[in-house]
């Protein structure tokens, strides 16, 4: 059981992935700050997918690499234990963010005269039944708006821990994943929520995107290129499809404001594309985008080394701290945009927000938050047999 030296086989880290992940994390901060005008410039305005899809796909990619290696080195039990540990970290982070959220809502409610009509609606479960709300939040059955990505991630990681050995048999893993996705979509299988309507993101459907990310992360880049080569015709078709999607979405959303009514069949078609259980169109959109970006951005593109791109690469490499800080900062951003929403406030929120995210990434990378910490214990262990 002496594996050959891994270094020459293993390709260098694909920093395009880190860059895109960093970008997605920035978009998540922006779209989690309602009222932020930059939100009009994010993916969701032009495509059937948004930063959530990108985040889950790339989370799968990173997990495939990290836990795949761990599985090879230390076996299923150890790798699964690490995954469970990761789930614990995410859970604690989620509960921390929930507490911040509750405090922010309380502060906002007091600062704004929202009593005028929102009180009548009994809109605030935390205000009405605080103990129950706390319990439901701990059970992940109460997920306030904008706090629904981490619970999804936790459950998907749990499923991944169970299926981990299957990453040696990609076809089996993909087959099982597609089957679960199909069953979920056909039967409405899902996890219950306090409000009685299921989770905002159904993990049993979204796991497919994560698994595709895992397989992409595990695949050898050269083989991947052979399997999904660049074809100009296909690329043009993909581009046309994505453009058509962008045009029809915007026609339906904004057409009436300009006196243009979208045809009913178009509205009816769009109304079937749900996000909760990851409609196949959304899945296809993000995979098409992934294929296009994978080919259009060369692996060693020079601009990825530019400091401007490098900060996003670094943010992507420090995924969890940057994600959590992004959500935390978005709460502060909301408070700021509630008190003022003029151009000055917009610039201030976005500049401060991005600067803080970069700072978190820099500090986390410097003291070795993500990745490094995982590698360090492994090194002495590997070196140990060499010592007399």
């Amino acid at each position, binding site marked *: 059981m002496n594996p050959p030296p891994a270094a020459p086989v293993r390709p260098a880290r694909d920093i395009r992935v880190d860059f895109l992940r960093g970008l997605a994390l920035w978009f998540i901060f922006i779209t989690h700050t309602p009222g932020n005008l930059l939100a009009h410039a994010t993916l969701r305005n032009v495509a059937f997918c948004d930063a959530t899809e990108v985040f889950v796909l790339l989370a799968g990619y990173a997990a495939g690499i990290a836990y795949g290696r761990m599985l090879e080195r230390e076996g299923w039990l150890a790798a699964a234990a690490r995954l469970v540990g990761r789930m614990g970290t995410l859970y604690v982070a989620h509960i921390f963010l929930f507490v911040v959220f509750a405090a922010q809502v309380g502060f906002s409610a007091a600062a704004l*005269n929202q009593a005028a009509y929102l009180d009548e609606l009994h809109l605030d479960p935390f205000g009405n039944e605080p103990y129950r709300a706390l319990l439901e939040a701990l059970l992940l059955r109460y997920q306030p708006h904008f706090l629904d990505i981490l619970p999804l991630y936790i459950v998907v990681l749990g499923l991944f821990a169970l299926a981990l050995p299957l990453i040696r048999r990609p076809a089996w893993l993909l087959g099982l994943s597609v089957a679960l996705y199909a069953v979920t979509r056909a039967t409405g299988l899902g996890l219950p929520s306090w409000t009685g309507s299921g989770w905002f993101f159904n993990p049993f459907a979204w796991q497919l995107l994560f698994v595709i990310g895992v397989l992409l992360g595990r695949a050898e880049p050269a083989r991947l290129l052979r399997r999904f080569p660049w074809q100009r015709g296909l690329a043009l078709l993909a581009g046309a499809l994505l453009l058509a999607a962008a045009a029809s979405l915007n026609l339906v959303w904004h057409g009436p404001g300009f006196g243009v009514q979208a045809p009913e069949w178009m509205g009816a078609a769009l109304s079937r594309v749900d996000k909760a259980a990851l409609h196949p169109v959304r899945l296809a959109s993000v995979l098409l985008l992934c294929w296009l970006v994978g080919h259009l951005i060369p692996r060693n593109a020079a601009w990825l080394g530019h400091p401007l791109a490098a900060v996003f690469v670094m943010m992507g490499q420090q995924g969890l701290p940057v994600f959590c800080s992004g959500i935390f900062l978005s709460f502060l951003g909301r408070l700021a945009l509630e008190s003022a929403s003029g151009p000055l406030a917009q610039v201030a929120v976005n500049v401060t927000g991005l600067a803080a995210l970069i700072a978190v990434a820099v500090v986390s990378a410097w003291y070795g938050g993500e990745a490094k910490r995982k590698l360090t214990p492994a090194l002495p262990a590997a070196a140990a047999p060499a010592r007399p």
Partner: protein
Amino acid sequence: MRAPLPRCLVLLAALLAAGAAPAQVPTAEAAACDAPEELTALPAPLAGVFAALSHTELRILVVGSASTQGGGTSGPAATWPERLAARLGAQAAPVTVRVTVFGGRGTTAADHARIIAEQGPLVRPHLVIWQLGTVEAARGLPPEEMAEEVQDAVARLRARRGERTDILLMDPQFSRFLRSNADVETYRDWLRVAAAASGAQLFSRWALMRHWVEAERIDLERAPRNRRVAVADRLHDCLAQALVRTILQGSPRPAR
């Protein structure tokens, strides 16, 4: 967190000044309700309403959640459905305008659909104004299901009434609090999709109220406590005026 206080006071003072002045000058009050044309315009005129206007009676069925019932106003007579009945009645005379209101606090699209199914055959409305989305957004109910309720209800109504009934969807009230704490944009997107898919039209109360807030004309959330009811009354009256403009758009009886 004491820093925002002085700014709040300045704002309150400004609002007080702005709120007090127009109360004595009716023309200024009317101007406060002005809005860019595109916020009240529809891509197509309301055929059912026009047909009714050439006869003797225009029947409107209003269905919705809390704002149809009170919404912080001084009383039922000051809510936007009642103000709409009064303002539209004055303009549409000699045609009689009859507004019937159903709904209540915390009701969802599914409740509204049930009401429309029950009341549609009784009221035989020429126009249904369906106010929805706030409760769904606040409670995080699935937006896709909300859209489905709308599509099904409109299809049923169309099967029964054909082109004689127009449907106008109305989205949530603009509120910074709601915007911060609920994913309102998603629900507004789905309301637009539902309108497009069913052939209904959308009256964007959200965009209109946001315009009034940004123009510092009507801002319920920043109104001082003692002025809140008065501001709510004015808001509902302004909404009614905007609705009249929307409903009569392109009609032989242009909104005054």
